[in-house]
């Protein structure tokens, strides 16, 4: 079963192309990491998959057309926006946040309880979100995403509030959630290394699709150079044995 199919996908904001002629497809369940420099269209691609922006070309998520079938689609996917979209002056408790899919979309209480168990945040429920550490905050937001029953989880920079030590924990948590729930993970991240052992698919993006395929095939020097420009390639981890981590 295909979870994603994009053919000639393009998105423009005010006449400026944010994404141009992107084509790839993905089976369910699997993992996809979207990689690219800032402004490459990674978040735009996620928003197109969610039907939150207008696009040209063909796009199917579990056979649904995101703009037309956005209501049906919201029952199949869940989403973790960038941490920068979170407004921390709002005095919400962790409990309010994790149960918000129940409050806003009528999701079941059991789904929230299961998400709390997977992310191990039971001890944080009565605390204010703003008082938590970066890693705890990200676990809470992942719990909120998991509290919505879905076949696919789209995560935009899940490591952004987390220090290096906590990143492996977050990656393990996501992979464990994928194993237990049988979901497809679509992750925008600059940091691939924590996911490579599960042999994910990778989209290399810089407004246009540079490459798509299994990580080992796609993460070559040439592709990364095309994506980031030569000067930046050394900052990215390589998967292929012939290259080793740079």
């Amino acid at each position, binding site marked *: 079963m295909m979870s994603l199919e994009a053919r000639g996908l393009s998105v423009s904001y005010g006449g400026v192309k944010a994404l141009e002629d992107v084509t790839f497809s993905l089976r369910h369940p699997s993992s996809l990491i979207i990689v690219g420099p800032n402004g490459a269209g990674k978040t735009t691609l996620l928003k197109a998959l969610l039907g939150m922006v207008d696009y040209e070309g063909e796009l199917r998520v579990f056979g649904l057309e995101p703009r037309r079938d956005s209501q049906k689609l919201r029952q199949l996917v869940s989403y973790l926006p960038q941490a920068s979209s979170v407004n921390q002056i709002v005095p919400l408790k962790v409990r309010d946040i994790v149960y918000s899919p129940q409050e*806003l979309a009528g999701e079941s209480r059991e789904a929230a309880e299961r998400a709390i168990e997977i992310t191990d945040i039971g001890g944080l429920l009565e605390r204010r979100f703003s008082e938590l550490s970066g890693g705890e905050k990200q676990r809470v937001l992942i719990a909120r995403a998991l509290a919505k029953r879905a076949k696919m989880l789209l995560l935009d920079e899940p490591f952004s509030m987390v220090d290096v030590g906590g990143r492996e924990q977050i990656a393990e948590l996501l992979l464990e959630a994928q194993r237990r729930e049988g979901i497809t993970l679509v992750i925008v991240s600059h940091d691939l290394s924590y996911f490579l052992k599960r042999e994910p698919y990778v989209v290399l993006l810089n407004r246009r699709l540079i490459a798509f395929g299994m990580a080992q095939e796609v993460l070559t020097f040439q592709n990364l150079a095309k994506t980031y420009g030569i000067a930046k390639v050394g900052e990215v981890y390589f998967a292929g044995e012939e290259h080793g981590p740079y």
Partner: protein
Amino acid sequence: MDPISALQEPFVQRAFIAITMASLVAGLVSLMIRYSQLQFLAVESFHALVAAAAVGYFVELFYPVSPELVAYLVMVGLLGFLNVLEGRVERLTAIAALSLSSATIISLFSFGLAQKSPFGSTIIYNILFGTPFLILQREVPYVVLAGSAMLLVLVALWKRILLLSFDPDYFAFIKGNNSFFLHRLFIYAMVAAAAVYLTKITGAVAAHVLLIAPSLAPFRQVSPVTVVLYALLVCYSAAFASIIFNLPYGAALGFFALLGYLLPAVIRRS
């Protein structure tokens, strides 16, 4: 005037009823503005609410309609225009467009008021610098009803307002773009309603202070209770100062609002 004997006066009693309701509404709405990060809207709302009030009182010269209702509809229209613009152009451009449109409307309709009514200048003065001591007996039930209705709506939807303000992207995802737009419009409509309501009670200048000041006061813990208490304290103090020293209400309100900002800082330092 002696404040204790002043409290026996019906016009003072009416003023205290009105400013109690105004404080409750202003406290919650200003907190909603802070959480929704719409301070720019509160700052800009001054032009829009003077424009709306000018249109309301101008229309009343020709048709038997409530000037507050007309003002509210104009205010919703102007803020709705801003909401639509924000989705299409930069926020600063949208604000500038609202500001310029409002300024044009203010100029046209206050000129019209001054031309068409012998009391035009007084009406314009009252729009800007009204006072709760001018609330009439027949207006008290409306002041209480309208304030209570706003408070009920705010309390009923408070959790949803917080969730929308906490993570707008997630809210837009889970409710859909149309519902997100409507929720944003609801917040703008509440700001419009509060602005017109407060202008009726205190005049536009003081209403503007009340929309911004309470939630930005430097408390250690900002909550609906602390913000409403601050608003009540400032409004009551301003009313007593007006009575004792015969000051304009807006000036006294500005002074006590400022004192509420400075005192916590001084206390903390000492």
